């Protein structure tokens, strides 16, 4: 029994403490967060934009070309694996252009997330009663004004849970960035594994770090949801 705990302590030391390996994980976590947050911002911008284009087309019949582009975009992105998209962005699109790998990942995950966020936002806009739209227009708001002041705030409230879900998905999806040689959290764990020939500690640690971030995020998000709901009781 004692030998078991000694082994455990030893493994813990070699995998996390020795050679400042925990710093490697911390660095990886930083990169993971950087990619996730930047990609989320890009994804939100793209998602809202395409969702507005698509629902404007549905409502008014305008923006035919933009709508077609938006539909092509969501179809292609949602219809192919993220992993393949990442490889294509890195080895095809940016093959001869030298940019930082992190930027490549941000662009790939941003565009990927945007397609899903588009559908989320669209469902949010559709969930707002048509009467709200008519009330806005009848007061004299333009189509855009009605969207901004009346429809989108209500749509946003409806999609907050789904957006939280998207953040969580995105965070975990960035773990494939190692395939284009980005040293993010998962890759960092894997490097330690290859150095120490111990799979348990580095991989479990990595998993726990993801889990901890998701739990923390869930708590924060729950608070946001509650505050938004308080607005209308």
């Amino acid at each position: 029994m004692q030998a078991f705990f000694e082994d455990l302590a030893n493994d813990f030391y070699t995998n996390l403490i020795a050679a400042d390996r925990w710093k490697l994980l911390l660095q990886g976590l930083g990169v993971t967060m950087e990619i996730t947050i930047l990609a989320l911002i890009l994804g939100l911008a793209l998602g809202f934009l395409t969702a507005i284009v698509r629902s404007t087309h549905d409502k008014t019949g305008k923006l035919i070309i933009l709508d077609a582009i938006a539909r092509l975009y969501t179809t292609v992105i949602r219809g192919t694996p993220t992993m393949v998209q990442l490889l294509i962005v890195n080895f095809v699109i940016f093959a001869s252009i030298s940019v930082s790998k992190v930027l490549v990942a941000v662009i790939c995950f941003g565009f990927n997330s945007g397609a899903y966020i588009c559908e989320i936002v669209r469902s949010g806009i559709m969930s707002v009663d048509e009467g709200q739209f008519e009330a806005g227009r009848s007061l004299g708001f333009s189509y855009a004004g009605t969207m901004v002041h009346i429809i989108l705030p209500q749509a946003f409230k409806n999609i907050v849970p789904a957006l939280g879900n998207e953040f969580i998905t995105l965070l975990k999806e960035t773990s494939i960035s190692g395939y284009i040689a980005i040293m993010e959290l998962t890759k960092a764990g894997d490097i330690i594994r290859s150095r120490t020939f111990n799979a348990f500690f580095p991989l479990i640690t990595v998993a726990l770090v993801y889990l901890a971030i998701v739990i923390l995020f869930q708590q924060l998000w729950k608070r946001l949801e509650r505050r938004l709901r308080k607005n209308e009781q």
Partner: protein
Amino acid sequence: MSSKKNKAEHLKNDVAAANAGRGKPIIRIEHLTKSFEKRGFGKRKRRSGDAEQPDDAHIHAVQDVSLSLYKGDVMVIIGPSGSGKSTLLRSINMLETPTSGHIWFDNVDLTDKATKIDQYRQRMGMVFQHFNLFPHKTILQNLTLAPIKLQKRPEAEVRAEAMELLARVGLADRANAYPSQLSGGQKQRIAIVRSLAMHPDLILFDEPTSALDPEMVGEVLDLMKDLARSGMTMAVVTHEMGFAREVGNRIIFMESGRILAEGTPEQFYKNPDNPRLKEFLSKVL
């Protein structure tokens, strides 16, 4: 030829005579027609098909309606459901795009594609059957949103006026509540003062009491009576015959998208000459 046509001519002359000396109308509707493509179950389609299509492919919600609304008029539109009264009313502020015909507001043809409809809608209030208050805004914000954003009036002034309006309907203490915290009758009163906050030239009411519990109908009708007495121009689609009789100065009876009868409340209820109107009134009175 058809007695219908004669009657229409007759009606027009009558109305013209009755309106002589009343100045220019606020709203003039000319030969308005709105047809929907038959698709789904009475679902409103934004655009209707071309005129060449055979008639049975379309539902004619409004057929060749002409009428004028003068300042201070309280025009009540009655008729069985599906008669096109709401479509007619919603066409006045172009929430429904007419298939053909014209709507003149202040010498501007609202059906003209070049017309910037938003600025004219600011001058026409609208009250809906389902209130359509903004649930994410407080009562006070519901009133002040459009005047501040669209008319660019100073916030303090708009807010003070909104509070006065709320006091007028006895809901000043609910200024910071949200719509979900109000009863149906209270919501509809707020919806009415929301349109008043824009200082409209006229207000359109689309079945304002139809979604209310019976005990709340009174408070909304009282407010509408109050408005009528203060000289507000109103066009009201309603099933409230008592209101039509008491407050309306003109009543229009529609069926199958056409105006079958028009007149003052006395003419209407004392001796209705149209057989369909007689039948309708016998059922609802």
